[in-house]
């Protein structure tokens, strides 16, 4: 069940970024932090690209196995599939709000609200996966299924690690975000440079 560990690990990375943005938005709203627009942009990019390119495709593989093994998870799988399909629209709305804030500082409240909505949605999405879908996966996938899916996930991790320069290195990006995020969230503040 290495696959579940990988998915859960990715959830923790995404949750860490959600937490960081929410915290920074509160600090900005309270006048205690100057907004670093590039850092916000990089964090939103992480949420979008990491989820869409690396995370959701692996989950879709897992959920397909579940669909083939039992009808028990039908309802939750349909719900998750819709949420995965809608994810690009949700993130687009967020990016739009950030672009508006970048163009006009008075649009801060709009971005903060858009992010709050996104964070609520994504948090619930993760909880549905971990509390409903994961137990079903543990229950219904056979040892042979896990062997296959674990192998697929390991191959995906290897192929898309970004260490070869062909794909984005999300691990390096995450470390850079931690470097730039203001303490106590990260090791900054320091300006985020592309």
């Amino acid at each position, binding site marked *: *069940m*290495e696959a*579940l*560990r990988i998915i*859960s*690990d990715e959830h*923790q*990375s995404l*949750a*860490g*970024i*959600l*937490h*960081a943005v*929410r*915290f920074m938005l*509160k600090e900005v709203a309270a006048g205690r932090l100057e907004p670093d627009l590039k850092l916000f942009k990089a964090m939103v990019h992480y949420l979008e690209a990491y989820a869409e390119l690396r995370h959701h495709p692996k989950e879709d593989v897992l959920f397909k196995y579940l669909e083939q093994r039992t009808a028990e998870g039908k309802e939750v799988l349909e719900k998750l599939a819709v949420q995965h399909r809608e994810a690009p629209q949700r993130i687009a709305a967020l990016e739009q709000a950030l672009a508006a804030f970048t163009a006009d500082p008075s649009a801060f409240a709009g971005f903060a609200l858009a992010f709050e909505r996104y964070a609520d949605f994504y*948090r619930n999405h*993760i*909880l549905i996966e*971990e*509390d409903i879908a994961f137990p079903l996966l*543990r229950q219904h996938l056979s040892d042979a299924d896990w062997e296959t899916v674990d192998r697929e996930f390991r191959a995906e991790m290897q192929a898309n690690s970004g260490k070869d320069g062909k794909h984005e290195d999300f*691990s390096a990006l*995450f*470390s850079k*975000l*931690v*470097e730039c*995020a203001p*303490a*106590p*969230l*990260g*090791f900054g503040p320091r300006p985020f440079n592309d």
Partner: protein
Amino acid sequence: MSKNVLEVKDLSVAYGKVEAVSKVSIAVGEGRIVTVIGPNGAGKTTTLSAIMGLLPSSGQVEFDGSIEQVPEVERMVVRGMSLVPEKRELFGTMTIEDNLLLGAFQRNREGHRDHLETMEDVYTIFPRLRERRLQAAGTMSGGERQMLAVGRALMAKPKLLMLDEPSLGLAPLIVREIFRIITELRRRGVSILLVEQNARAALQVADYAYVLENGSVKMEGEAEQLRNDPRVIESYLGLASKHQEMLST
């Protein structure tokens, strides 16, 4: 199967008449991350302290092939055991570099003169420490202090690194980074005994795990097995822990 760098058998620690740790047996294989998880007050820190020789104990501690009937902290350090305590215990008015050098003190006293090379290694793992090396440790944030505490322990070139609650009080973003570094240390061949209340994070990186409750080992197994054990999920990885992780702003 790797050989064990640490084997603890029937370790017990009492505070007066109260037994805080009772017949705990744990082992750490070479180059592995072994975690001890459990609730607050389970005896995790007491266990680490007793292994290190900071507390009187009964039982047997075998470290790097030799049995220590009565572990003594100075000897354990010389033999290659390093502890990063929960409170970091840095010297706030000293520079980051001086704090690091203190970590090599015992090794230097033994005649080793490789502390500058070791410091370079530490700076490679923690570039942030190099940037701030001439600043006082007291000016660092919580996450940076944790990095310095780990860096200082690495200056002793330990055969076994023991980490006591490295995630305590840190934001989720930094916790992720600290655990990434812990796995990097394993890749470099360091054996690690990790005591953590954050079971979710600890079980993600560990190879093997023990669950300590009320001073005794209640469960043990490969980390993967424990991650998927309904009892561990219910007690340590359930909804409450996830909500805490995702809602704590």
